[in-house]
């Protein structure tokens, strides 16, 4: 291992074995997004209206709540990976670290609110079972 140039210090170390991790997770979640978002768009189109009671009954069904929680996990993880690449492409100084921390807060925070809301509706639904 050399001590001089940047390339000299890493030459011979081999790969960190993490190179494909981000790429693979992005592809894996793109596939789950494809099916979950396809289901979600069809369901939205088929909702009779956007009124409170109708949407509440729809969200109260287990067959809506479970795929919707999975959708939030898959989509939010996917956009967290995607926006990481955007930040890495355009930010080259300390702002990169700040934005990455903000991105993680945003993705995890918004995901927590979304999942909590879905579960709260599903666990307190009274008409959901029949919907």
């Amino acid at each position, binding site marked *: 291992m050399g*001590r*001089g140039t*940047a390339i000299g210090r890493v030459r011979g170390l081999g790969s960190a074995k993490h190179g494909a991790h981000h790429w693979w997770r992005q*592809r894996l979640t*793109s596939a789950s*997004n*494809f099916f979950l*978002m396809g289901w979600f*768009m069809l369901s939205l*189109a088929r909702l*009779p*209206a*956007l*009124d*409170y009671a109708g*949407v*509440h009954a729809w*969200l109260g069904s287990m067959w809506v709540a479970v795929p919707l929680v999975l959708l939030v996990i898959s989509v*939010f993880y996917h*956009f967290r990976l*995607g*926006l990481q690449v*955007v930040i890495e492409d355009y930010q080259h100084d300390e702002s990169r670290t700040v934005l990455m921390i903000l991105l993680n807060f*945003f993705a995890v925070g*918004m995901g927590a*609110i*979304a999942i*909590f*809301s*879905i579960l*709260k*509706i599903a666990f307190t639904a009274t008409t959901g079972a029949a919907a």
Partner: protein
Amino acid sequence: MASRPINRPLSPHLQIWRWGPHMLVSILHRATGTAMALGGTVGLVWWLAAQAAGPEAYATWLWFFRELAGGAIGYVVAIGLSWAFFQHMSTGVRHWILDVGAGYELKTNKTGAMATMVVSVVLTAVFWAYILGVK
């Protein structure tokens, strides 16, 4: 030890190359993804949280998207997001094909890029024709 600043010439960027459909859909993929991640997320989470909070909170959400400015905000956002989703989805499927090493011949690549834009516009039109036709 300390890394020195590197002042090598940069490769030509967007303003140098002649634009083609493959460049456009590449940018569209990133732009639609970013728009959905920031705007779509806020709209979706607000929708779910308002549903969980109760009828009054949900009425505010409905007012913002269905009544404010004559419901224009809702339609612009919803049609925009649905198109963004279909565009991101079709360029995403194109990425799967490119990932296995297919579709890099110039003509095939250009046709594939054009196809993603045709698919996104057609699916958006079908989506909204169904919603507005049924109700």
